[in-house]
């Protein structure tokens, strides 16, 4: 497997008042890869995603996405470069319908005057319907999204990201609070959407990780403790020590 590298974090460091939440971290994600990041609480997993998407600014090091250096770009430019981020709690527009939620995420009319002139043309509608089908909400397009179940809200947010056709998708605990059936559907969804893009997932549920991961990265205290396929990571004594338990 030697696909081109899409994302390269090198010597990445961020410190909050002297506490190094991420400490000289190196991480490489290949094209078409589904990477899962695991680790105990406070290991810096969410902070890492925050750094990549620009929510938190790095103290040092670099983040290269394709050819662009992300550490200096404003958040909206990072998104436009092709990085999508899903937050831990479902972050959708609860007062809008599912259709509107997806429509607003369509990557056209992103400037002020573009947004004024934006019309829901047939191609937008078609794309919304296509994504809705992908996330299993095709029958709920006119439902106010606040009325969806927790799992459906998570899918809707993934759908909103898919609307933007990101090349790198980052998901923070996408199955938290989901039923068993919903987890299975989410695993299938993630497998499908990682076919033509790179995906980074933070997850705690080891059964789920086993089901989806191509490669697993274990983080601990802002550093990478181990990296490799599931089997290798699970048998790594250091990982068992700090995270998986005996």
């Amino acid at each position, binding site marked *: 497997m030697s696909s081109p590298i899409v994302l390269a974090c090198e010597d990445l460091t961020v410190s909050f008042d002297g506490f190094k939440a991420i400490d000289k971290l190196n991480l490489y994600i290949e094209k078409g890869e589904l990477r899962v990041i695991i680790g105990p609480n406070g290991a810096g997993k969410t902070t890492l995603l925050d750094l990549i*998407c620009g*929510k938190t600014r790095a103290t040092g090091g670099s983040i290269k996405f394709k050819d662009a250096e992300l550490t200096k770009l*404003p*958040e*909206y430019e990072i*998104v*436009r470069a092709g990085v*999508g*981020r899903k*937050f831990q709690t479902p*972050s*959708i*527009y*609860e*007062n*809008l*319908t599912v259709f*509107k939620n997806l*429509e*607003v*995420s369509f*990557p056209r*009319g*992103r*400037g*002020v005057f573009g*947004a*004024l*002139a*934006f019309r829901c043309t047939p191609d937008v509608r078609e794309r919304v319907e296509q994504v809705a089908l992908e996330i*299993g909400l095709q*029958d*709920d397009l*006119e*439902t*106010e999204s606040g*009325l*969806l*179940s*927790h*799992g459906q809200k998570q899918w809707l*947010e993934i759908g*909103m990201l898919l609307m*933007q056709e990101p090349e790198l998708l980052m998901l923070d605990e996408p199955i938290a609070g*989901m*039923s*068993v*059936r*919903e987890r299975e*559907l989410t695993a299938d969804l993630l497998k499908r959407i990682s076919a033509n893009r790179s995906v980074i997932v933070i997850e705690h549920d080891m059964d789920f990780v086993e089901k989806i991961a191509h490669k697993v990265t274990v983080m601990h205290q802002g550093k990478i403790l181990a990296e490799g396929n599931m089997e290798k990571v699970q048998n790594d004594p250091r990982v068992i020590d700090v995270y998986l338990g005996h």
Partner: protein
Amino acid sequence: MKSIMDWLKRNEVLSLSVLAALILVVFPLVLEPFRLNLVGKYLTYGFVAIGLVMLWGYGGVLSLGQGVFFGLGGYCMAMFLKLEASDPESTKIQSTPGIPDFMDWNQLTALPLWWKPFKSFPFTLAAVILVPTLLAFVIGFALFKRRVGGVYFAIITQAVALILSVLIIGRQGYTGGVNGITDLKTLLGWDIRTDSARLTLYFVTAGVLLASIVLCRWVQKSKLGTLLLAMRDKEDRVRFSGYDVAMFKVFAFCLAAALAGIGGALFTLQVGFMSPSFVGIVPSIEMVIYTAVGGRMSLVGAVYGALLVNFGKTFFSESFPDLWLFLMAALFIGVTMAFPNGLAGLYDSHIKPWLARRKAAKAEPPKAQPPLAADSTSAAADKATGAVAAARADSKPGTGPLQPPAGPAPATGQTA
């Protein structure tokens, strides 16, 4: 769902038509010229109020400095009118004829450079809109790009209001100082002090206000309006969907400023002067109260808010001048605590359901009036889709046992 949207649309047109009928027909018919001129003045505050609906209600950004933009628009117009009133013939007793009287009193011997363009009417019209918009752009860009918001933004806008009023008062020779710019007489030779001119100006104000409401409604319905609402609840989600959130706030701020400027210019035309007492902190806060009372999510409501609070102000300050400020403060606190969506919110939560029930009861016997019948069928259709949706939710594969019954969205308190 479709039928609910249709009903809302009709309701929207209806509420705008009622307002239009009130200000274009009822007031001119029943009010004497003096009172009508007062209403015209109140309507100019309506521009500020609908601007605040866009900025505060939709954008979630509270500005306590809208008086600045109202004042700038008003001063631009006043400068033009003052220059027209200061022709060499009527100012020949001054030591320097041909310049505004207050400049002469302050030992100025020539018209300042920045006053000169205001001899042109087209320039003045453009300035009425552009000067407030540009200032709003500069303030908004500087603050929103740095993620200054909420209380801090409100305080800074207050400071701007204070600065501008102190500046105007302090630079008496250029601005007319605390008295403002007074003795305005004609607009392009047309005497604006006569009753007939005031009547015309009243209709112009009412017409421009109604057009502004339609324009704002159009903005609300565009993707930009949706994004403003989305930003209010989930700013990060909008930002991480590739939107430059700051620029959308800047736009809302500029729109509110431009509307306030137009209001200010129409104010000057109807009242015949402009002074710093419309620029400072107190008038700016009063303007927020109009919107709060009327309902910050409702354009039409905000105009009613401006009218009602000002009627109250005139009535109470004629009868109990000392009490008014306390009453106004109590009104603001009361509204914010008891009904945060203002009068429009009360209408939505109380009167509208009551009307709907009455209509439903009336529509039982065969078709009374076309709109009533349409309403009851829409309600019935809605129930039917609800049942279908619930049934579909049960049978749909892939929904776990945790799935709540998915009904259609209830008609939420959306206001015209």
